[in-house]
């Protein structure tokens, strides 16, 4: 008994062609012979399977297939082979197994077209979502007792308090980088002392809030999308509706409020830590004593720089939370959607924040807060 699947095509005197299969015909052995068997030229009148040591459905399938293609007869089947061959009767088909995959030159334009076409419904969706939030807020203002304080506090903790270490570390490093790089460039004009102005103004006006918004989008925007998306998949959102709880009030509003409330605090904290980082570099590299650096900040940074940051922060928070919640609530179908929507929440959140930041920059300069 050999360990390999084998075949032998014999022509006997009567012009009969007998294909004798031998060895184990199993899913594990068939790979060696199946292409050769498929390529065999007819005519074959008989497929002799008496020499098979082992057979499973795949082996039986190959034997059956040979017999049907050459209109041959199967002989010498053992009891097991017969049972398998009988079970396979009528299971042949032509259906495509793999999903249709278009070539690149068709797929890319098609995807583009779908995107453009879907953009309109996307806009409708976002406006509808905003409307639902406004309606839910209105409801909550009329019935303040329905507001979920506990959920809000929990989200405040998740969005704000637990973000403190990472936002602090990031800002500290950014402060160091700005001060160090700024000092190198300013030294060319002999204006190292202006490093204080640079660090103070840029962190309070721009970077503190912007980097925090990006961090919050990555931490909380994605978490919102993933949480809400999973709740949609497990039908928790539907269960809430049937109990009479509005998911907008219970899930979305606390998250959005938390982001709006925490962003100014986090942004201010980030700017503060970045200034400290700058002061450390000032002390170590520029010879500006740590405390003098902080005192100079008060003199050179106009108060409106602080306001610019603080006004932008809640808007950024709103955008990031909206993107997260909107995409989370759009999840339907399978688990793959959750990942997809989470990515989209972060990408659209950060993109929108940067676009709005550009508008703010122009706006504040125009009103004389340059």
């Amino acid at each position, binding site marked *: 008994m050999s360990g390999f699947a084998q075949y032998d095509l014999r022509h006997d005197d009567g012009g009969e062609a007998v294909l004798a299969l031998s060895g184990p015909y199993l899913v594990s052995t068939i790979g060696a012979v199946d292409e050769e068997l498929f390529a065999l030229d007819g005519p074959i009148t008989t497929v002799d399977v008496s020499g098979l040591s*082992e057979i499973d*459905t795949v082996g039986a399938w190959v034997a059956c297939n040979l017999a049907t293609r050459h209109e041959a007869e199967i002989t010498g089947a053992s009891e097991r082979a017969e049972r398998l061959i*009988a079970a396979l009767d009528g*299971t042949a*088909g032509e*259906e495509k197994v793999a999903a249709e995959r278009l070539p690149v030159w068709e797929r890319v334009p098609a995807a583009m077209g779908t995107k453009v076409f879907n953009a309109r419904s996307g806009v409708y969706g976002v406006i509808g979502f905003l409307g639902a939030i406004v309606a839910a807020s209105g409801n909550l203002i009329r019935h303040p007792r329905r507001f979920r304080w506990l959920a809000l506090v929990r989200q405040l903790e998740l969005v704000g308090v637990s973000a403190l270490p990472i936002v602090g570390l990031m800002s500290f490093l950014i402060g160091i980088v700005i001060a160090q790089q700024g000092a190198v460039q300013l030294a060319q004009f002999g204006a190292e002392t202006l490093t204080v102005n640079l660090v103070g103004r840029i962190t309070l006006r721009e970077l503190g809030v912007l980097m925090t918004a990006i961090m919050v989008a990555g931490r909380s925007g994605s978490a919102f999308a993933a949480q809400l998306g999973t709740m949609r998949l497990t039908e928790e959102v539907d269960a809430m509706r049937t109990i009479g709880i509005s998911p907008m009030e219970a899930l979305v509003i606390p998250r959005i409020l938390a982001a709006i409330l925490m962003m100014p605090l986090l942004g201010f904290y980030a700017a503060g830590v970045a200034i400290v980082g700058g002061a450390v570099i000032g002390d170590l590299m520029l010879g500006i004593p740590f405390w003098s650096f902080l005192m100079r900040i008060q003199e050179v940074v106009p108060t409106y720089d602080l306001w610019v940051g603080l006004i932008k922060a809640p808007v950024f928070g709103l955008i990031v939370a909206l993107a997260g919640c909107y995409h989370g609530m759009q999840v339907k179908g399978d688990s793959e959607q959750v990942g997809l929507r989470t990515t989209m929440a972060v990408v659209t959140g950060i993109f929108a924040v940067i676009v709005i930041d550009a508008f703010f920059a122009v706006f504040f300069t125009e009103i004389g807060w340059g």
Partner: protein
Amino acid sequence: MAIDDDGRELGRHERFRGEYPIVVEGLVNRFGEQTVHQDLDLKVRRGEILGVVGGSGTGKSVLMRSIIGLQPPTEGSVTVFGKSMTDSDPDENIGVRNRWGVLFQGGALFSTLTVGENVQVPLKQFYPDISPALLDEIARFKTVLSGLPEAAAGKFPSELSGGMKKRAGLARALALDPELLFLDEPTAGLDPIGAAAFDRLTRELKETLGLTVFLITHDLDTLHEICDRVAVLADKKVIAVDTVPNLMQLDHPWIQEYFNGPRGRAALTAQALDELRRHMDVPIAAHAVKALDNDNKDGA
């Protein structure tokens, strides 16, 4: 490689001829403070359908996961095809994984692949030299063997109903022509007609393919209809393994309540009716069914 009863290593293409493909001895599973299994012993005979029953939380799924090596037990030994699962890594190739198929509760189909491609995954993993044309043919006939329409082979799992997902999962479990099949609550969530059809399919497949089936279930009809023996999990161990009629004689409170409760009796009646129908040409009148049911209640 798997090892036969007499200690000989099985060839790659040889079927297991020992008496017990699965042997569990002294199994202990503990999660923190909570003990799920304590000194659990179980042997599964070759060629039988072993039903595993037990209340919720008695660790039926944990037992299955321990046997297939997904859940390393705290203590004890699990031997599958003569090969110790407890001494090997979960991802180590020990030559038994191509001898079994597992149907998870939700089907656990890969959602980015069609049903046909799902069936091909284990084939490609173990036997990369099979030609693509034959792979497609195998995927199609396994799909049909599992009781799905042929058109399902090209569909994604998200396009299928719950029952169809189970059948698709079964098709993938059968992809390698396994000798051992694990089914985790295959009929849960199916309508009675679908469940009965799935039971029939399991039985047929077992007979044609010569499978050994390890079947976790809550479905009393399944137990009566297709299981050769039933293992009862209670008090952290297997308290009894026997045929259903023998089990019903036992004097354990949980077993009594399980098999002789209202649902147990209904399943028994259905079984008896089925038996009757097989021997009668005339349809059975409703009052006869009722009488039989009452009889059964008195008997219990």
